């Protein structure tokens, strides 16, 4: 066992300059490293990301295989359920996996902010970075970097698995019109969705409330808005975050689509930007 002495902390560690030599400068690299340490050092990160990979690729593979195997079987409710698949195979392949896979990204995005508050580590974080905003910026940048790499890998895997399974019925390749944009766009959509959830986590600061809000916005709101009548209803529906953002991973426009894929993605980015700015303003103003 070690016997330690109160004298020890007085010995300034070598290579540590005193405060006097520290002029005002933002230690961007240090902040990024710190946020990376924070994200990688809790288990919830690893588990939600594993779930993301498994659900997104697994669901695409499973559902595509199921539909191909039952291609000629009569569909519940009749009608030609394959029309949309034939019209927009890449949208179908990506959409099946993302529909549930995106929820893991939502949960992780929320947790990254809310666990700071629930555990109280926000106090340690803000004592270290009292200007607050650099911490938020570093956290967003590190999280987005992890997401964009992982999400792009996952959606490309998802596409290759799905298109291989679907090949006997509908042929689709990256060289088809809009397909590469849709696959790349799917990864970008998931990345921005992570920041969207993170901002809501930072605004609400409680895990359960924030997760409920994000899932409400992503899953429930589109269902409700689809019921709105008339032209204005269609416009509200089109500009909702998830409705607009998801356009970017479909190759062909849906019936009555008001926005182009990139316009829709732009609208989603604007929603996210507004929330991130609100999160930043409140982080700055509220007591920690």
């Amino acid at each position, binding site marked *: 066992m070690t016997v330690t002495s109160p004298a020890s902390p007085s010995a300034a560690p070598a290579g540590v300059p005193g405060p006097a030599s520290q002029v005002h400068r933002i230690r961007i690299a240090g902040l990024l490293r710190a946020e990376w*340490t924070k994200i990688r050092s809790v288990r919830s990160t690893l588990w939600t990301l594993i779930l993301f990979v498994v659900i997104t690729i697994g669901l695409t593979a499973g559902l595509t295989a199921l539909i191909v195997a039952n291609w000629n079987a009569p569909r519940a409710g009749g009608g030609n359920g394959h029309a949309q698949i034939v019209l927009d195979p890449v949208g179908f392949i990506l959409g099946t996996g993302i529909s549930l896979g995106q929820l893991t990204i939502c949960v992780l995005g929320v947790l990254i902010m809310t666990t700071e508050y629930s555990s109280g580590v926000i106090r340690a974080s803000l004592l270290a970075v009292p200007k607050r905003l650099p911490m938020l910026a570093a956290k967003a940048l590190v999280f987005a970097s992890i997401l964009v790499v992982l999400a792009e890998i996952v959606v490309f895997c998802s596409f290759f698995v799905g298109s291989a399974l679907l090949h006997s019925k509908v042929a689709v390749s990256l060289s088809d019109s809009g397909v590469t944009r849709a696959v790349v766009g799917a990864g970008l959509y998931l990345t921005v969705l992570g920041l969207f959830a993170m901002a809501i986590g930072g605004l609400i600061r409680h895990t359960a409330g924030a997760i409920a809000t994000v899932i409400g916005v992503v899953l429930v709101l589109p269902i409700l808005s689809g019921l709105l009548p008339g032209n204005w209803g269609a416009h509200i529906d089109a500009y909702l975050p998830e409705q607009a953002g998801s356009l970017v991973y479909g190759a062909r426009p849906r019936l009555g689509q008001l926005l182009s894929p990139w316009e829709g993605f732009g609208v989603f980015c604007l929603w996210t930007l507004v929330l991130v700015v609100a999160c930043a303003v409140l982080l700055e103003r509220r007591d920690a």
Partner: protein
Amino acid sequence: MIEVRGLTKRFGSKTAVDGLTFNVEPGRVTGFLGPNGAGKSTTMRLILGLDWPQAGWAKIDGYFYRDLPDPLRTVGALLEAKSVHPGRSARNHLLFLAQTQGLPARRADEMLDLVGLADVAGKRAGGFSLGMSQRLGIAAALLGDPQVLLLDEPVNGLDPEGVLWIRNLMKHLAGQGRTIFVSSHLMNEMAVTADHLIVIGRGRMIADASTSEVITRGTSTSVRVRTPDAQRLRELIAAEGGTVVAAEPGPGEPPPVNGAGLFDVTGMEAARIGEIAASASVVLHELTPVASLEEAFMELTSQTLEFGHGPGQGDAMAYPGGGYTGPADGQPGPVGLGKGGAR
């Protein structure tokens, strides 16, 4: 050096910190004393830029905390509330803090060694006992080798060995010229640790004086006298052996009316002062025994009961009865905090 000027913080209708003004000087341990709910933690959070004050300000070495370039290298803080993610290891907690300040990673290991947590460096902090969590908090506070330390109830949850270690650590660091500001609701603990005391109750300043002075004031009573014939009565009291102290009207008290003199008398009972005044036909407007600091504390403590603190708190606030002998000298030198450390 910490400067606090007119610091005020309200939460809704409750004023937690009410116009506090004081300095915390380097080179000594300054105790921050008051009953639970007096506003000690809030004051520390305001100094550290975690909460925004409604009025007033606090600076550390001439800077607002927010403007410190590498805050952890200037100020170390141990807050009362937990500030560690339960799923993160002790080492990773210190590592990310070190990275924000551009400190080398080995600094985290050095601090874990120092507080005796090296053996559990990789264990998740959620499984730590209160004492281990407290030691991790102290490791975080000392991480940047700061010149200023703010410790909120640092001995909470520590075993007697740990309490002694903290006491000696604080004295040692103060002896190196550092600024040590340590809060407690225990008068006894502060009496043996602090050189100087800042005492607050319900967010207001009660005393800002050396520890010995506070103890002296706390154990002697004085009598407040208000009379139109102040000069004559002062002379009579002095002649009878009482000590006259000029008094300022307390907060919320009316200023002297019609030139009536107001002063405090120590070393003499109120009854004796009344007799002196009567025999000399001096009119008295007021003759009030002034509560000692101890009594003031008791009163404040009973008022904080409404916030849910149990009885018995008053006992903890009480001064060591009359025969206080001063800080226990000749305490053993460096003491290991390591659990079951070599003895």
